[in-house]
């Protein structure tokens, strides 16, 4: 059986080499691309992102990626957002008092974590809702690698979420319909991350 095709969208954000290799290792036929048609056609689209919400959203809009994400969500074609790529799928982000509109697949806002130690940096556990496809077969004691200061905190209506707590609870991962996203970096989360990405890729093939 052919490997499912995965478009890892390059809009100028950070280290994509690890994500590329991790998705490949998990069974994807991965292309790093800034081409919207490639992003439309692929079995799965990955939206990465590190750094500031506003800068990432600017990159997303400049490339027209927001349109393709919405098209895919409406057509029930798989999308996976990672880190700030997860955050921009929400309606808006607030950083340093600046409000930026997101792609708006998930209802809710991304805002500063109310925690003593910011950034939240390191390996943490999550409590995944029963039935989440991303976490199928993954031991609840597994830890994933987080590095962020902002997060979405309210679970969007009808979505399943995994919750992490860093002084306060926030959304570590969310899925609804064909759109999944993680606040942590599965491509940097060793074997646990590999298992999660493999789950996502397996779903593309079915």
């Amino acid at each position, binding site marked *: 059986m052919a490997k499912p095709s995965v478009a890892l969208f390059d809009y100028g954000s950070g280290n994509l*080499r690890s994500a590329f290799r991790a998705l490949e290792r998990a069974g994807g036929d991965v292309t790093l691309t800034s081409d919207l048609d490639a992003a439309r056609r692929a079995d799965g689209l990955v939206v990465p992102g590190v750094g500031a919400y506003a800068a990432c959203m600017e990159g997303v809009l400049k490339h027209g990626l927001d349109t393709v994400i919405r098209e895919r969500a409406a057509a029930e074609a798989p999308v996976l957002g990672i880190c700030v790529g997860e955050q921009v799928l929400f309606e808006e982000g607030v950083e340093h008092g600046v409000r930026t509109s997101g792609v708006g697949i998930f209802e809710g806002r991304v805002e500063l974590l109310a925690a003593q130690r910011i950034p939240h940096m390191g390996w943490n556990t999550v409590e995944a809702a029963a039935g989440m496809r991303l976490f199928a077969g993954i031991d609840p004691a597994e830890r994933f690698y987080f590095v962020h200061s902002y997060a979405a905190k309210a679970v969007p209506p009808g979505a399943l979420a995994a919750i992490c707590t860093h002084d306060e609870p926030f959304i570590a991962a969310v899925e609804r319909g064909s759109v999944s996203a993680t606040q942590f970096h599965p491509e940097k989360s060793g074997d646990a991350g590999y298992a999660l990405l493999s789950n996502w890729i397996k779903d593309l093939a079915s």
Partner: protein
Amino acid sequence: MTVAVRVIPCLDVDAGRVVKGVNFENLRDAGDPVALAAAYDAAGADELTFLDVSASSGDRATMYDVVARTAEQVFIPLTVGGGVRTADDVDRLLRAGADKVGINTAAIARPEVISEIAERFGNQVLVLSADVASGRDTDSGWEVTTHGGQKRSTGLDAVEWCARAAELGAGEILLNSIDSDGMKQGFDLKLIAAVRAAVDIPLIASGGAGKAADFPPAVDAGADAVLAASIFHFGDVAIGEVKQVLREAGHPVR
């Protein structure tokens, strides 16, 4: 649950090879940073740090290749420090596959570079590396030094400098005690506590570990992560042992 205490081995890399002796069993080429990174990943390291000690710019180009090959094979976070002067240097390392970049001397010479990097890439990429020695002429009693522990004086109060770097946008502090480094008598706990009291960003303790039991006190003093080099390389202490004693001391580990 809470975020786990990170245990981080640090490798000195020069011209694509690990320098300072490394004695790793079952490793055909202990001088290859990529092979060592994979071995540490398998041993349970939570993160890796490469310190680029290259003298020439040609060797720095080699470093990008090492980072790229590591990022393709090792799926835990990688920090690269050494010789980083500008936001463009950071860009090159991130593109090569680094997740975080350590900055030291260049930030002392021109603190604004911290903000420049944080604004362009986010503060999570930036590790302020501080080599600290006791210094009589500073308020805290600790002074920042440059040039890798040759104790070249800067006149900067170490605690104030860490607080300033955090304000300017550093995402994390790698606090290396030059006095304790290589002494194997334990971390400088007073220094860790003093910097902890001054900053809210994550703090990595470095310098002085000689045995597994030296690690929990550093966390008690306020470190979020612990870093060591030679004791891991020579097999004096295994990553798993450090995690075991941390766990027994009540600290969460992965």
